[in-house]
């Protein structure tokens, strides 16, 4: 599903290049649940950005579902990721002015679903995550765990094949974190959603079936 070859990413400061990613070679099969770990500043988020097509590498090639991502035009790239990829953020990043229902609905609007379809999909999601009662509330009326649930529901609304999560439990307490991890595992096993998560917690990493360690921009060992 994902194939990264000789990926380099650097920031230019003056005349020196500060490498954030160096020679990343990585293949991820459809249906896997991968955890990326590593110390702060090691380039985890950057790697996730590249995979999620929010950022581009400076060198190397990236094949996503048989498409050469770096060769695509901006518009085609957006089409590709909005169809296949969902994002979950550490800081939830819900839209403050929209209700729970509307937050989940927004990606469907961008994907061109009709009103009635959107309604049924969002209702499904609300059901599935047991937040029907909260559908008319605004994000600031929810707890952190609930917000993250909405974030995941939003990411899954368009039924993506790949879910990218950057420290999804980072702002939650351990019980809430466990719930989210259980949810991820279920999604991976029952719905066959490929998941790549960044995490600092050894325990969370064990929910997945593969761990990638980053150190100073390099993949250490598996």
């Amino acid at each position, binding site marked *: 599903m994902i194939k990264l070859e000789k990926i380099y990413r650097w920031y230019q400061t003056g005349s020196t290049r500060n490498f954030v990613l160096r020679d990343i070679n990585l293949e991820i099969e459809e249906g896997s649940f991968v955890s990326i770990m590593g110390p702060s500043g090691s380039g985890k988020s950057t790697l996730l950005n590249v995979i999620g097509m*929010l950022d581009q590498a400076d060198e190397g090639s990236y094949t996503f579902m048989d498409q050469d991502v770096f060769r695509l035009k901006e*518009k085609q790239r957006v089409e590709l990721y909005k169809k296949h990829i969902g994002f979950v953020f550490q800081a939830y990043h819900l839209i403050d002015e929209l209700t729970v229902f509307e937050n989940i609905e927004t990606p469907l609007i961008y994907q061109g679903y009709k009103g009635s379809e959107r309604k049924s999909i969002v209702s499904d999601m609300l059901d599935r995550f047991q937040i029907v009662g909260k559908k008319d509330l605004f994000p600031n009326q929810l707890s952190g765990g609930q917000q993250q649930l909405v974030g995941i529901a939003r990411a899954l609304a368009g039924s993506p094949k790949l879910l990218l999560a950057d420290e999804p439990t980072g702002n939650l307490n351990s019980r809430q974190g466990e719930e989210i991890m259980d949810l991820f595992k279920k999604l991976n096993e029952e719905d066959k959603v490929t998941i790549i998560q960044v995490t600092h917690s050894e325990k969370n990493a064990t929910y997945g079936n593969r761990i990638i360690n980053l150190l100073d921009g390099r993949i250490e060992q598996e």
Partner: protein
Amino acid sequence: MLFQYFKLSWRNLLKNRQFSLLNILGLSSGLAIALLLLLYIRDEKSFDQYHENVDRIQRICLTMNYDGNERKVTTAPNSIGPAILENLSGVKDQVRTLNHNFGDIAFINSGEKQISTRHLIWADPSILNIFDIPLLNGTKNEVLSAPGKVILSDRMAKTIFGDEDPVGKRIKIDQYLDVEITGIYADFPQNSSMNPEIIGSFNTMEWASKELVWSNASFETFLLLEQGTDSKLLEQQIEGLVARNVAQEDRYYSVWLQPMRDLHLHSTEMQFTGAVVASKTGDSRQINLLLILALIILGIAATNYMNLSTARSLAQSKEVGINKAIGAHRSHLITRYYVETFLLVGISMIIAALLIFTILPFFNQVVDKQLSIQDVLSPKIIISSLAVGGVLTLLSGLYPALYLSGFQPKFLLNTSFRKQSTAGNFRKALVITQFSASVVLIVGTIVCYKQIQFIQQKNLGFNPEQVIAISTAAAEDIGQIESLRDGFSSISSVEAIARAQTYPGKGGSGRSIHIPGYPEKVLPVTTNQVTPEIVEVLDMHIIAGQTLPQRSHKDDPFCSIILNQKAVKFLGYSPEEAIGKEAPGLFQKPAIITGVVSDFHFNSLHQPIGAYAFHNNFTEGRPYMLVKTNTSNISDLLSQLQTAFKKSLPHSAFVYEFLSQEIEQLYAGEKRTAKVVLLFSILAILVACLGLFGLAAFTSEQRRKEIGIRKVLGASIAGLVQLLSVDFIRLVFIAILISVPLSWWLMHTWLENYAYKIELSLWYFAAAGLITLLIAIQTVSFQAIRAAISNPVKSIRTE
């Protein structure tokens, strides 16, 4: 999807109340001001356009040449119109009009009723075919067909006759002319250059209609062209026609045609002595000035909006990032921000409309117009308002839509946002532009007012204060005038009385003098037939000789004159030398100089002082009695004057004018412009400050955390205020530096309009700069202080 955007925008507006309020306030006042100006401009441009034939009507104008001096007049000899109609093709009709007494007051008597008006004209019957003058009573072909027939405006008919039917009744004009009322016409609309209350048949005036001559240009003449006639070609043909009829040496003028459409706004350089279309002229320059002002104000309002939007961009960029991450295209986001802008502009339009309705009466008062709600609601204005709203939306939304939609979503994955360079330079440029415009407007206002004050306080060379001009045009014989003079002089507060043809500020007869021995070296002279007391009444300064002799007679072999310095200098004499000499070319009989007065401003200060002569030749009438008084109890004096007047002239109306007011009238246009510019400058600055206020608020908001930390570390409030204010104040400083040369140049150009003008002194610019700076400091420090005294613990935690 649009509905979603509306919903989102609406909630956004509600959430950021302060931001929305500032924006709506700025946008709606900007829109209201701009629309009012457009309304004004449209009204000025609508003058005379209601005539069905407006595109085919041309006014015959003359350019007179005197030895290098040019004078453009709107009147022509009485023979030109008929000659064109007879000899040239392409002309369907012509009308000659003559202002009764050349625009002086006409006295109307009907039974016991006495009325005075300046709006009596004599015209060919074709006036009813060329212009749109709907008759309410009477038939077109008959009402002006013979001498002694007049038609009245509806208003005039009501004034004289009330509810009675006036048709068939007779009225007396100036005591001697007995005419019959044959019809009533609808009142001329307010946006008509021409506004007669009484129109009489042209051939009633025998002297004007019997003999057709090619000199004496006293008749305002209009041509109605055939469809498709080329007016330039016609002009040449008219030139040829004049050449065939007037000998080369007598041809002191050239003829040209002015389209009816240009009458109102493009006649500022013309002289109207005696013209029918005299009173209301607009000025295309003023219109352009106001148009620029409207654009500036709209620009400032749009700029405010952009400014405030970019100030919020840090918060907005997060939203953009999220939307992009969940699949939004750039076009989605552009639409989204345009929807928000549209919503704000829409709300502001509604508020602007309410604002306009509320301030319309006040606005009318300032600009001297009668605009009504109906005018505002006319389809044209509504469409152009919508267009303005549309342009404003496009313009204001441009920056937020394009700039914000460009944010990259990758920053979302970072736990806290990195400080991006959020359009800092662009915003700075906007603030500088806004405040430069404000400074220019303030300088403009100051200079405008100073110049008007200068004009008012300038030593005119005579003293118009406490001089009252009373019209005696309606006196039936000389006995009445003598008795009136006696009556006036027995009033204790009357100091002196003179009779005069005219007075300074009101023109005079145009003649010319030439240098002795050189008949081709001529200078135009304004002449005024007066009695000797004029020097005392007007408090003129005699430098040599004395005033006119007391007694003079029609059959005297010569006449006496008083010249001003300018005229004497032209003749080549010193004032003392001039006494007893002749001024050649003025009259048929020799004109002997008895006195020389220092130069005085008998015209507006737009024009340099020309030559002037008071004389006692019996060539003109003397319809004014000028009375110099010395009392402050004006109402008492007026009633005494009126009593005396009624005793001597029982059959005529008592009409008077204060000379000082008449002179002020010369600058009515400037004053109106100054008032309008002042009003709108204040509003423009207010709108600009609104923007600065918002900007300061949001910057403080953004830096709350920084302020909190600094406070915890021990920063003083004064230090924090300085920290927050100094950036803005620096921008305002730069704005001042930019605007000073700009406004200097603009004002210098404007002052070129005046022959007598103030010097541009440094303090005008200093004052404008200081005012702007003070307002800016006030605005910014208000926000800064608010931010600086807030509780630091709270602001740190909320981050």
